[in-house]
């Protein structure tokens, strides 16, 4: 028993925390673009944080529940409804058999994550359920959801105890301009002082060229000392690649494992939740922080997730 996809939406894929350990073989990590929001959705329905969720982009799917289960929706507000009634985000919801989850359209942000209690029945490929469409692996036959797809639940739970505790305030707040904190490197020395100054002071605009692989920005050219080419090396999630054109590209989940363009800086982990919600036309600014600052912030964020888990599981 399962959900049936009435309408797949724009780009809905099965994603977990990614395929760890295979980058040395050229296999991209994939996984959710916003690990924190996916983790929160999972915690709210009693799952391990790294359970696979549905990642929805802009226009969410229509899903008919063939069996009752508890779900939680986090990330951006794509206008979720259950049988036509507005459905709360960041709250565990008990869905009955026959009910239909729909999304009426993006209100804020552009990506939402749906967690299902007990997880989805999707086979592991190289240790992960994440969909990597380019190599057609993971998820549902390595592709995005299509009309008529049926996805079974592994261990659905019609009810969870303490439903009232399984909620927090929605996290994403739209702004006129966003600040992304960055750690300079690995090739910040390939840029002139003027180039670094431009990068750290000017406003950049998100372009429509924004997919699971990367997010292309438009704005003032970031000047190289010579050019944007290097001998290929590894690329991290959030790395900001600047090819010879001087326009930044933020590398995301489906990025290639290695690349031959200079990377000026990396977005810090705690800002991925903002990054994942950016839309074409949004304005961003980069602010430098130290690796120590970023790691303190990440550890604080993880502690908050543990606290949330304790609350919903009533361990305190």
């Amino acid at each position, binding site marked *: 028993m399962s959900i049936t996809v009435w309408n797949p939406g724009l780009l809905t894929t099965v994603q977990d925390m990614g395929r760890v350990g295979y980058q*040395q073989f050229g296999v991209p990590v994939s996984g959710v673009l916003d690990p924190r929001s996916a983790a929160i959705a999972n915690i709210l329905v009693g799952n391990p944080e790294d359970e696979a969720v549905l990642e929805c982009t802009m226009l969410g799917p229509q899903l008919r529940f063939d069996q009752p289960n508890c779900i939680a929706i986090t990330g951006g507000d794509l206008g979720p409804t259950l049988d036509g009634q507005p459905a709360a985000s960041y709250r565990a919801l008990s869905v009955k058999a026959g009910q239909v989850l729909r999304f009426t359209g993006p209100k804020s942000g552009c990506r939402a994550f749906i967690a299902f209690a007990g997880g989805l029945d999707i086979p592991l490929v190289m240790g992960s359920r994440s969909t990597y469409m380019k190599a057609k692996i993971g998820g549902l036959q390595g592709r995005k959801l299509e009309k008529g797809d049926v996805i079974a639940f592994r261990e659905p739970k019609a009810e969870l105890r303490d439903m009232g505790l399984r909620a927090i305030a929605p996290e994403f707040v739209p702004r006129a301009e966003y600040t992304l904190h960055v750690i*300079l490197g690995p090739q910040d020395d390939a840029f002139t002082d003027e180039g670094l100054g431009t990068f750290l002071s000017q406003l950049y605009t998100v372009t429509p060229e924004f997919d699971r692989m990367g997010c292309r920005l438009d704005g003032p050219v970031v000047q190289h000392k010579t050019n944007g080419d290097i001998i290929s*090396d590894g*690329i991290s*999630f959030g790395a900001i690649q600047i090819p010879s054109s001087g326009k930044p590209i933020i590398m995301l989940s489906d990025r*290639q494992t290695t690349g031959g363009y200079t990377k000026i800086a*990396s977005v810090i982990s705690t800002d991925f939740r903002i990054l994942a919600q950016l839309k074409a036309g949004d304005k961003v600014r980069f602010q430098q922080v130290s690796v*120590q600052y970023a*790691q303190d912030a990440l550890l604080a964020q993880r502690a908050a997730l543990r606290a949330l888990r304790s609350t919903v599981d009533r361990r305190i």
Partner: protein
Amino acid sequence: MEVFMADVRFLLTGDTSLTVEFGNEISEAINTQIRAFHIALKNSGIPGIMETVPTYRSLMIHYDPSTILYDPLVKRLKALLGQLDQIQIPPSDVLEIPVLYGGEEGPDLGFVARHSGKTPEEVIRIHTSVEYLIYMLGFTPGFTYLGGMSQEIATPRLETPRVKIPAGSVGIAGAQTGVYPIDSPGGWQLIGRTPVHMYDPNRDTPILPQAGQYIQFRAIDQAEYDRIAAEEAAGTYVCRRHPREEGAR
């Protein structure tokens, strides 16, 4: 293994990974240092290491800051670098990759031969005479960046890339050679095809080659191609490999 510490740089790649860079050129000497460091790291017991990605001139290390923070990790990595001269590096494996050259499987063998002023047989002899170092994998799952191809058979890419190249195709692009692990578009001159699956996501070892190993191509005929292809389909094929001899070429 001597490492000139002054040349080694620790590069920041965010808050959950870093890159240890050993130089700024593509060379076997640098790659050997990376391999030694990679082995030393695996045996070091440093906690919190999630994943490592060797490339031409560096090793990227993904780690969990909940287990080890940047500063203590760099301290331990530096100590490890100082001990590299005590590391015994086992000889690299040479993977033997059988290739059916020419014909439908290698439609550009004739062009490569004409471009190099050689016969197709000479191109095959030259292509099979080298143990190619796998510097790194990337681009697509299982794609190897190989070093060591003879300049004698270097040939520019196709002017118009093909829309679909079958998995297993062996090609030449400039001074590079390699195998397409999955069906993909591409502009390499195709000189042959291997029945060996370099990549199979559902196998216990999804990707056959590893960075730091070598590949040697061996010319086979249609009958052997068919036999190996049948074994691959049945999941019984075992790629032949042997330890590389010191100083081999």
